[in-house]
């Protein structure tokens, strides 16, 4: 049961109007992940029309979440004013999900090496914290100034340590401390200040609180059955989903007063958070990872074939997509704008690369397009580059990207015995060099391969006017580009603009964005039951104009985000057999 993938469920919930995938599935057999009906006696299966009426929409339970490197760095920035990004510099790299996210609670393991790094970081951060402007004012304001003089133990020191534990603890652990927890911190502070100045004790206290699991992990109490999250738990879910950092003072205040449990106040906070500069982290951690733009630094366009590709261009490409997504959210534009926009963000360098006139200077700015050659994610240099090989484009990779990232329908595995596609072969009989299209067509003549390549390849061919770094081209190796594509259902399209329109009309695109967003927001793999939750979120977002902003808001307003249950994947060690 737990093995059923969300994909299975969503597929059948979708309106089967545009049968992009029918041929692929039909050719390969059963969709991945469909369980044996015998596993589960009685009741409709995920995918049956009345499935969602029968399941209890249990919000599920998320494993205790370790802060990932980005969250750690952002948190110490906001907690201590530390901007040196210690986690980025020293901590082990966090594991990625297949979607590219690094906030999956189960995959965020805690190795001994990592704990060593946490200890070293806590030590260094504590050492720097006491010296930093504002630290005393923020966390030690209530203390008698005399405690900072001399090395004598005193009752005032204990009072100050107690006040500090509560003030600093509320921020560092993102919730009020219990009396027992306060006592533990006080003990450490007093010991550290023994025969020393009080600062030495505070430093030790800060160090212990930063090494504590209460700082390094986000934990939600695991009770009996389903319960509403408390204000502080909601505050952390909001802040780490939308900002990838700790809650700010306003969120903590509202958490304390119960305000975050009221829908109107919650909506107000979400709006505020989306206007905040910290919301950039959402674009970086959700959108850039989902769209693979985060992989741009790893792309290695061939130095000879693409001599113009350099760091400035790479940066402009990355900025373009991020600014573009942020703009779609900020201006409450329809989700489908992502694939059919008539604008983008360019600076002089990127505009020249695209062949767009009239953009001068390094500053990225909004540029209206005629919508023919450029418009939407599929025509952006970032996406086009990360879906190319070093020396040439790959219609296959681009097709897979569209299926996997934009339609959440990754093609099934290639049949056994075939690892990859020969894109640079010559004709076996004549020895003549084949065009890319000819080579792929040859490949598709193999009936085993055709099922999926008939779907993937034409999608990618629609983008052949863009070379491996996203520049416009009319020819490839001397031959005119043919950007004609045909879908298994017989419809044809010409070029990226028409392909973008087809995607914009496909309900699976919207569903897919919703699926990725829910996965990211919860920080866990989706379960079959989540398909019903997602259904509700999509419906409500649609009523609000189907904008990306509405989708984000409805996701974090949903019960699944504000409540917690007990359902976790079962331990099934024998499963792999």
């Amino acid at each position: 049961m737990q093995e059923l993938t969300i994909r299975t469920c969503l597929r059948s919930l979708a309106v089967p109007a545009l049968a992009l995938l029918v041929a692929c599935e039909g050719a390969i057999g059963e969709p991945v992940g469909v369980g044996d009906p015998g596993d589960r006696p009685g009741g409709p299966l995920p995918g049956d029309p009345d499935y969602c009426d029968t399941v209890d929409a249990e919000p599920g339970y998320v494993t205790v979440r370790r802060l990932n490197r980005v969250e750690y760095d952002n948190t110490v920035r906001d907690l201590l004013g530390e901007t040196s990004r210690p986690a980025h510099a020293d901590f082990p790299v966090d594991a990625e999900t297949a979607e590219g996210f690094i906030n999956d609670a189960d995959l965020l393991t805690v190795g001994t090496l990592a704990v060593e790094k946490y200890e070293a970081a806590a030590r260094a951060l504590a050492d720097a914290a006491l010296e930093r402007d504002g630290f005393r004012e923020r966390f030690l304001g209530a203390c008698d100034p005399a405690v900072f003089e001399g090395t004598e133990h005193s009752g005032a020191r204990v009072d100050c340590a107690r006040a500090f534990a509560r003030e600093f603890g509320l921020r560092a652990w993102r919730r009020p401390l219990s009396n027992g927890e306060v006592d533990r911190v006080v003990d450490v502070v007093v010991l550290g200040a023994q025969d020393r100045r009080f600062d030495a004790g505070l430093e030790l206290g800060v160090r212990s609180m930063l090494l504590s699991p209460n700082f390094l992990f986000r934990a939600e109490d695991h009770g009996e059955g389903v319960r509403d999250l408390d204000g502080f738990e909601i505050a952390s879910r909001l802040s780490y989903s939308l900002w990838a950092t700790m809650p700010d003072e306003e969120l903590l205040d509202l958490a304390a007063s119960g305000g975050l449990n009221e829908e109107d106040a919650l909506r107000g906070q979400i709006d505020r958070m989306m206007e905040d500069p910290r919301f950039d982290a959402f674009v970086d951690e959700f959108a850039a990872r989902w769209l693979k733009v985060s992989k741009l630094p790893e792309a290695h366009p061939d130095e000879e074939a693409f001599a113009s590709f350099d760091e400035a261009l790479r940066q402009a490409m990355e900025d373009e997509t991020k600014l573009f997504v942020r703009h779609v959210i900020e201006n409450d534009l329809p989700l489908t704008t992502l694939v059919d926009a008539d604008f983008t963000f360019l600076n002089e360098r990127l505009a020249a690369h695209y062949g767009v006139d009239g953009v001068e200077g390094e500053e990225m700015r909004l540029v209206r397009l005629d919508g023919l050659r450029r418009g939407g994610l599929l025509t952006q240099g970032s996406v086009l580059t990360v879906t190319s090989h070093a020396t040439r484009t790959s219609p296959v990779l681009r097709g897979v990207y569209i299926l996997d990232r934009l339609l959440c329908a990754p093609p099934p595995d290639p049949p056994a015995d075939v690892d990859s596609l020969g894109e640079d072969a010559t004709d076996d009989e004549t020895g003549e060099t084949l065009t890319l299209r000819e080579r792929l067509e040859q490949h598709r003549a193999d009936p085993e391969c055709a099922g999926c390549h008939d779907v993937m390849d034409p999608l990618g061919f629609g983008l052949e006017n863009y070379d491996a770094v996203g520049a416009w081209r009319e020819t490839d190796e001397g031959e005119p580009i043919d950007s004609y594509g045909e879908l298994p259902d017989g419809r044809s399209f010409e070029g990226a603009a028409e392909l973008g329109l087809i995607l914009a009309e496909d309900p699976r695109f919207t569903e897919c964005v919703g699926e990725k967003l829910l996965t990211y927001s919860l920080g866990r793999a989706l379960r079959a039951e989540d398909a019903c939750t997602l259904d509700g979120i999509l419906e409500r977002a649609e009523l609000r104009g189907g904008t990306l902003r509405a989708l984000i808001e409805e996701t974090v307003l949903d019960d699944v985000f504000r409540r917690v249950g007990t359902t976790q994947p079962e331990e099934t060690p024998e499963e792999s057999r």
Partner: protein
Amino acid sequence: MTKKARRSVRSFRLKRRALLGGAGATLALPFLEAMLPRTRRERVKAQEDPRVRLVWVYVPNGMIRTKLTPTDTGAGYTLSPMLEPIGDMRDHFNVLTGLSNKPGGGRYTYPDGTVSNDGPGDHARDTGTFLTCARLKKTDGSDIRNGISIDQVAANRLREYTPTVPSLVLATRSGSYGGDSGYAPIYKSNISWASETTPMDKETSPRAVFERLFAGFDPGESAAERERRQRLEQSVLDSVTDDVSSLRGRLGRQDQVKLDEYLEGIRQLEVRLETSEGMPICDPGAAPPEDGSYDFLEHVDLMFEVIRLAFQCDRTRVATLILEKPGSVYDFLRAGGSPIREAHHRMSHLEGGTNDVQRIEAINRWQVEQFGNLLRRLQGTEEGDGSTLLDNSLVMFGGGLDGTGHSGGAMGDLTPRTSGPVHRHTNLPILLGGRGGGAVRSGRHVLYERDEPLADLYISMAQAAGLTDLSSFALEGTGPLHSLG
């Protein structure tokens, strides 16, 4: 060694502070005989610590075998073209041909006869099972399952001798190396696994490794200061341990695993605290340069050097290194007159015909040369009893894939599409450097003709290092590999 230094050496248990304190306390000695109170032979006889080090150097995507595998066997074998550049080391390594790691296959028959067919994903299984010899659970979600890797089995026992750094888990590239055909990226990105569900974090910075091995001790610290420091640090660790206990009661079953992992890390910090004295004298010399101040080739050398240093100073006995990630571009190498600009993995299926064969061979040749460089480095370090570090190490180099679309025939056989699975998990490319303190007779080409499992080789390696009672490993390891000694 100066007389003064010699006098100060009273026993095997020297104060670590005296030597790890940096330039001020430098003893310009690579090794002190005090570390070896008796000869190696005597200690082995007495079943004492054999002080054998284990290294695994992993290369992805398999290797082309036509120019690697020698055509004849035994001690007087003829060097193959790819082995020629390391011919000077021929007495110090074996070529092991014919070993298999069948749990890495798409189709696998368990010892009990159960058949599992997981289809494509040979690259995830190549990396993921290389040191675990386990069957990966095929999932692209977070419900991953592998097995503990041999280096961690060894480290868990040998930590008795090197408690602060039980093992080094190194790579030249950090982060995720990408998913593969329905396998989560975590499989293709890690060879060392602490448990079924948790890979060991990779370290990529030679400087950070060096600092973890040698830094953190103040030679000027008085006994009183040290006592106070240890007491304070212990209080921090006690406090966070209490925090874990409080959390436990509030959380679910799955969470306990995470808390256990965390607590294991805290315990390791306690070990560091307790053993901040008692380490043998060794001068590690200057720290490696800052990250980013060297190129890739220098990076590889620096990784080898920190391994050598760690072994020389007996700071750890176990190390693994992922030499490169599967998708890397070797543009510093040339083939057919031009730099290699395609990604390694993409070329490894040899679909580009002769071009790809030339390019992959150039990569494989370079990889073998790196193996030679590591051996030379270890061979150049004397242990004080007349033996070298290499004599007392076992350095396994290789990968978990056969690597080409042919079964060792002529170049004309390179037709991957028609020859079945392109990458096989049998007939693996394996070189074994060192003598393991006498456990292995080196300088030979050994041919294994019955698909003997890699897991058996791992049992042999672990036994040489002191895990003498290890008689099985993973799915297929049932005893030490024959014909090594």
